[in-house]
């Protein structure tokens, strides 16, 4: 890119990274996001967790700077930072969760990395970088050589060099890297490792952009359908076939082998024990940097797979055609709806099938049960002339229905049914007629009561008459059967 005035002026206005650096809140945004995302290599964080972390940060800052510093609640800041005019956070929803998720945007990561490089380095190694550059050139030149003769000559040269080195070591001459050379290389390794980790966000971001461009081009297609189809066939693997897609795939295949992982672990372990490296006091996380790469790479891999799949689906099954048609029809609907704005229609305009059937099967309905009407046929009603003591009406008897239910359930534990008469024989009535009547009112999920009108039954119980004499009382009623 060219660094002319116009470009930089546009960048200063539009680029999220520069916007972050210009922001009054830059120290808060950069320090917080570095602590939460960059340092622990976190890729995605839920809104609640992130808001909680920021709330703690804000609380500490308010203690230092006074209550008026950063007055808004954490969620507001987060949502603000995710708005398009800031673009410091990416807010999105992932499948299977109703909660918003956040990730850094690559621009934020760049700004944070640049801030990290501002402090002066104690030591700037140049040798190892020169060697790396030289290596890269050699790889390119050798890798593009098609003439087998030349390839073989090159390999021969390498073999001679290796033979010479073996001979030197045999003769006792073992060349070692000095401390400066070790430091130089380790520093470069650290920097490369960090940059690689940071690049994954940008890689994903670029894939998303690529996906968007393909979709836009198809949505805005002006040409005919045939040409569009050709276009679409060409775009089906746009993501995997891009240069970035291929490079990422190669990286991923290289890193994924367990042998490679072990090799990396061993090498790191050895290097980190070298006195020259220990003296540099490297960050403890570097020990597992290859796992971090793996994690970040896996995240990118998943994103790429999902994007490719969705893009394919978008290009398959005519979705884009349907979408274009829908857009056309909707323009008509909207203009008509606007015209009808002042005269809204009442009642149903459209209908839509339901997505499910509420199935009510006939067999689920209970059978008809005729209501039982008791007939008091054996009674002649006569006007009474005894002087009855009405106090009986006020001597309320409370029957413990729960106790009666227990009797019935208990009796039904080891038999399928029991008549009221048997039940009363087993559990004598203590409150006389009131208790008997209570039995007739019991209903429960645990048992059913059935009345057999054709079989009268006499039920006896012991009671006391007015003089306190024991008497046996009898009630005649149709047979009542309790069943499980």
């Amino acid at each position, binding site marked *: 890119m060219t660094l002319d005035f116009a470009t930089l002026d546009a960048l200063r206005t539009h680029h999220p990274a520069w916007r972050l650096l210009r922001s009054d809140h830059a120290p808060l945004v950069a320090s917080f996001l570095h602590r939460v995302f960059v340092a622990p290599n976190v890729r995605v964080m839920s809104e609640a967790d992130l808001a909680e972390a920021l709330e703690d940060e804000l609380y500490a800052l308010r203690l230092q700077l006074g209550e008026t510093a950063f007055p808004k609640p954490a969620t507001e800041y987060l949502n603000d930072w995710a708005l398009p005019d800031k673009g410091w956070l990416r807010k999105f929803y992932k499948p299977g969760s109703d*909660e918003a998720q956040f990730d850094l945007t690559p621009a934020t990561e760049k700004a944070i990395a640049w801030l990290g490089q501002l402090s002066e380095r104690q030591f700037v190694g140049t040798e190892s970088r020169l060697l790396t550059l030289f290596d890269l050139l050699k790889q390119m030149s050798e890798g593009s050589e098609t003439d087998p003769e030349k390839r073989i000559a090159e390999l021969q040269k390498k073999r001679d060099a290796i033979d010479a080195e073996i001979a030197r070591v045999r003769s006792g001459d073992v060349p070692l890297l000095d401390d400066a050379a070790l430091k130089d290389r380790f520093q470069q390794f650290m920097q490369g490792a960090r940059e690689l980790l940071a690049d994954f966000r940008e890689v994903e971001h670029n894939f998303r952009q690529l996906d968007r461009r393909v979709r836009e081009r198809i949505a805005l297609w002006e040409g005919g359908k045939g040409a569009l189809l050709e276009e679409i066939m060409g775009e089906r693997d746009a993501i995997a076939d891009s240069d970035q897609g291929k490079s990422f795939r190669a990286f991923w295949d290289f890193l994924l082998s367990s042998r490679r992982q072990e090799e990396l672990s061993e090498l790191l372990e050895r290097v980190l024990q070298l006195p020259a490296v220990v003296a540099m006091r490297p960050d403890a996380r570097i020990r597992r940097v290859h796992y971090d790469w793996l994690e970040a790479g896996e995240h990118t891999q998943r994103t790429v797979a999902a994007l490719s799949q969705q893009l394919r689906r978008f290009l398959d099954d005519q979705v884009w055609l349907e979408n274009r048609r829908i857009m056309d029809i909707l323009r008509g609907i909207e203009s008509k709806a606007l015209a009808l704005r002042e005269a809204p229609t009442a009642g149903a305009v459209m209908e839509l099938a339901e997505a499910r059937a509420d199935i009510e099967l006939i067999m689920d309905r209970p059978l008809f049960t005729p209501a039982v009407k008791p007939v008091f046929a054996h009674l002649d009603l006569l006007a009474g002339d005894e002087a009855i003591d009405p106090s009986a009406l006020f001597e309320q008897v409370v029957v413990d229905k729960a106790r009666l239910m227990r009797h019935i359930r208990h009796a039904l534990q080891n038999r399928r049914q029991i008549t009221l008469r048997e039940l009363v024989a087993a559990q004598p009535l203590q409150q006389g007629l009131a208790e008997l009547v209570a039995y007739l009112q019991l209903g429960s999920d645990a048992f059913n009561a059935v009345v057999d009108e054709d079989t009268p039954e006499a039920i006896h119980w012991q009671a006391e008459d007015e003089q306190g004499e024991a008497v046996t009382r009898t009630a005649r009623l149709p047979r009542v059967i309790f069943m499980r």
Partner: protein
Amino acid sequence: MGRLLSLQARVRDYVALLNLDLVLDEAEGYAFLKNRPEPAEDDPAPRLPRLIARRPLSFAVSLLLALLRRKLAEFDAGGGETRLVLSRDEIVELVRVFLPDGPNEARLIDQIETTLNKVVELGFLHKLKPASGSATGPAHYEVRRILKAFVDAQWLAEFDARLAAYQSALSGSAKEARDG
């Protein structure tokens, strides 16, 4: 969904007995039941009762469904996210322009709210639970992707035609009123 995928064939056979088809879109992650097409007029096959009811929709609900369908189309054309989430305010803005202007803002919002709840009930919007621990912000709704299967080009064309008929009926009656 995973269990439905593994039981797919059995479910299909089972609901076929009830004269229903299972529609299952694995890629989009939804499934629903639908009446099998009626036999043709001259077909002696018995006419079975239709288990899936068709629900009448008011103008406001139909319009909101159409507008949400447009949002979904734009969203799909825009990039690789799969879940379209709109805040309540965004949905209100979507519909507001199509409602008669009135002095009573609150009543307007209530009207839209009613429509919105109806669409939630139909299953095309899903109200997201607010994040735990965060202050209760405005409600957010996810536009369910199954909307694509129900509000398709055919349905929208039908809606468009009915609006056109209504419009011409309206202008006809207005003309009569003018001509006295």
